[in-house]
């Protein structure tokens, strides 16, 4: 297990948590999640008429005694959940102290740990130009190390494009699940359309918005020529009070738009700004479940 992403004390706190899922998904194996399918759990769901070949152990004999008809008892299936950790690994994620990518990776590690220990299937989908192949869904506590190792190897580079990543992701027709997007969402192509597409494909997006401290609270003073790490664009800024206020106003508008979007669609939106807020943000999301 990679100690750079998860420290033991944190792991102990994580062990008591489960991932918050607002929807129900159909899994591929029995698990701890309520499924959209009827299964073999203890929770009664419905009756139906017996058909030859049905498991006779599920025949409701009490009902037969009363009605003289063979009916089967149906129970809510409890199946596993697939968690897709979609990590922005573009060049912009390399910035911040600590780097935004590090924060995103630690969050992803924590979420993967929770998922794997909770019998969920976990997949990692890094996005950004030239990103590595996604880690296919894996299951079982024994695979935690494998997932963390995969996460640890992710390096920042290239331009971000959530839209392209989601398009490619959906093109593989993955089983609907929890899609946790971890990134700064500073995507010139926009972020609403890809999230809408995920929703339309029965996935449940969760947004972990990662921003660096200096992005949330830029220091005042100085004449700078800011160079965009992804697009190379150059913006000359004199960081006076007016410029800073204008930036913060734009940032607020940006964050408000994301919050408003998430609220309207019933999504979880978690802000992970800077190092200090990392665990609190994660806990707030997990405890909400």
């Amino acid at each position, binding site marked *: 297990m990679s100690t750079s992403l998860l420290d033991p004390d944190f792991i102990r706190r994580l062990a008591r948590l489960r991932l918050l899922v607002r929807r129900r998904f159909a899994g591929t194996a029995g698990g701890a999640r309520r499924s959209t399918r009827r299964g073999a759990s203890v929770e009664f769901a419905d009756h139906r008429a017996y058909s030859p070949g049905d498991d006779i152990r599920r025949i409701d004999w009490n009902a037969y005694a009363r009605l003289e008809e063979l009916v089967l008892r149906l129970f809510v299936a409890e199946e596993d959940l697939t968690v897709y950790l979609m990590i922005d690994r573009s060049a912009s994620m390399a910035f911040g102290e600590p780097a935004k990518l590090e924060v995103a990776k630690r969050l992803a590690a924590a979420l993967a740990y929770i998922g794997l220990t909770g019998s969920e299937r976990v997949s990692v989908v890094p996005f950004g130009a030239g990103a590595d192949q996604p880690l296919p869904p894996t299951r079982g506590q024994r695979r935690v190390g494998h997932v963390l190792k995969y996460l640890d190897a992710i390096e920042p580079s290239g331009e971000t494009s959530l839209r392209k990543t989601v398009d490619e992701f959906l093109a593989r027709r993955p089983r609907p699940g929890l899609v946790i997007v971890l990134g700064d969402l500073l995507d010139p192509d926009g972020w609403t359309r890809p999230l809408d597409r995920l929703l339309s494909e029965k996935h449940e997006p969760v947004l972990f918005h990662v921003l660096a401290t200096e992005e949330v609270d830029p220091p005042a003073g100085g004449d700078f020529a*800011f160079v965009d*790490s992804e697009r190379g664009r150059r913006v000359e800024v004199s960081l006076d009070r007016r410029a800073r206020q204008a930036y913060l106003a734009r940032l607020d508008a940006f964050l408000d738009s994301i919050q408003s979007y998430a609220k309207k669609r019933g999504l979880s939106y978690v802000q992970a700004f800077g190092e200090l807020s990392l665990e609190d943000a994660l806990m707030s999301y997990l405890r909400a479940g």
Partner: protein
Amino acid sequence: MTFLAPYNLAWLSLLVPLIVLYILKRRRQERLIGSTLLWEQALRDLRAERPWKKLTPQVSLLLQALIIIAGSIALARPAGAGQAPQGSRLALVVDVSASMAAREGDERRIDRAAAIGADLARGLPPGGEMMIVEASAEPVVRAPFERDATSLERALDSLTIRGARSDLEAAVSLAAERLRGSPEGSRILVLTDAAIDGSVAIDGHPMPVEIQRIGGAPLSNSAIVDADARARVGELDRADLFARVAHHGSEAADLYVTATLTGREGAIASRRVTVEPGTVESVVMAVDLPPNAAGQSPVVELRISPAEGSAPDALPEDDLAVVPSPGRGKLPVFLVGTAPAPVERVVRADVDAEVFRTDLQRLSERDEDADPLEGLFVYTGDVPEDAPPGDSVVIAPVADEVFELTIGEEARAPAILTWDEADPRLRFTSFQDVHLARLRPVRGPAARALVTTSEGAAIATVQRSNGETTVLGFDPSRSDWPAQPSFVVFFRNLLEHARARRAAGGIPSGTLGDPLRVPAPDGVEVTVQTPSGETLEAVGRGGLAVVPIPAEPGVFSVDVEGVPRFALRSLLDRAESDLTPRLEVMEGGERAEGALDEAEEHAESWPWVAGALLLLLLIEVFWASRSSERRRAA
């Protein structure tokens, strides 16, 4: 193009800080950040909120630079050719030849020249002065160097068309002479329609000479370029009218040539003639010219008018010619004293002369209330104290003073040196082999020598207030002259000259616009009525009343102490009737191409530059506002 306030061009130096603002970069610390997405949006917000915009769009820089340039140039008062820089002098030479009376549109060329001159006068810079020279056959300074625009405009208004051809070279030389020692930047500006045969040199003067063309549009003009009325030999009161009609234009002209008599109704003859462009057609009409009830012969007016469908005529001044009637019967010739036999023989040989023998005694005994004798007096030897009205000839005078002339001591066998062939009395004559036995040379400040000898003038003439006298300082019978043809020709010319002067009213003929030189005693008021009915007045000084007249063709009625006279003015100049610009401007001995630009009235062009400045400002404001809207929309 020149600048009347060149110091204002210093404002162009504002371009330097402007461009520096654009090219000077603030030293900025370069920093790589994750994304500039939010910063770009924030800066756009900032630019929209700021009262000033960032100096980045290059179109804006261009517009602002143009505004500064246009503003500076406007303040520097750019002026077209002819405007004088500050403190300098401008000599304006205006062509007043007849072709300047041509109309282009509703305006005469000379009026346009005057308007341009007035524009220049009003636009004189501080300390600037302007002079106006009238370029006619003999250039005249109409206004000396003057700063007052009103005075200059008055002088420009007084410019009058002269029928004679303009001597631009002489006018420019006169202006250059007056400009000698003027400050730097002084110049000569010539305004002409360039409808002049020949060339003018613009170099060789200490200051620049600019020639600007007035008008020059293709015009159609028909003109009477020659006219005459000659009596038919042997037919009483019958005459032939001759007219030569020229046409300049792009198409042939159909014209009516009509003859009328002054003061009488109706045409006496008319012809229709077609004249091809650039050609001259002759018209001859036989007419009756009976004298009026007072026995006076009328003046013939020949007028051309376009037939229906012909192009309008650009110069009306050459459409009318007035010619004297060929005579009122015969010319009375009074031989006073004993005229030399050869002279009497020649005079009597003229069928149109009626000869009377008389002497000074009989003339002095004549009743004062009787009508004055009118004709040519030929005195031999003695002359009266006061010359009678009319023309006279004096042969071999005895007295030392003859009609304002001095007769010198007798000289023997003087050699004839020169003779004036241009004088009408000496047409077709030669004194090559003429030898005089004795001569009393004719002298005097008023004398104009016609034939000069080694001892002085043998034949001279003097113009008096009431006539013209030709004096022969020798007796022709004491020379070999009567044996030569030139003797007969001279006396026939003399009679013809007297006849023509008599027919013309006794006032020297002239071309269009020439002032009338009316013989009149000192202090006597002369009244002149122009053909258009305007009345002019002048007072006789030195035996002459000089009356400036407008450039009107026709008969000018003159009244001198109740005695009616008339003067005739016609253009009759083919070159002046050709309105095509053809003057060659020479520089360095070669034709200077493009040196004859068309004059523009608004010579000072700063209002246009200022207009351009305002337009640029509007574009700049529009551009800036549109840019802001686009940013807000984005």
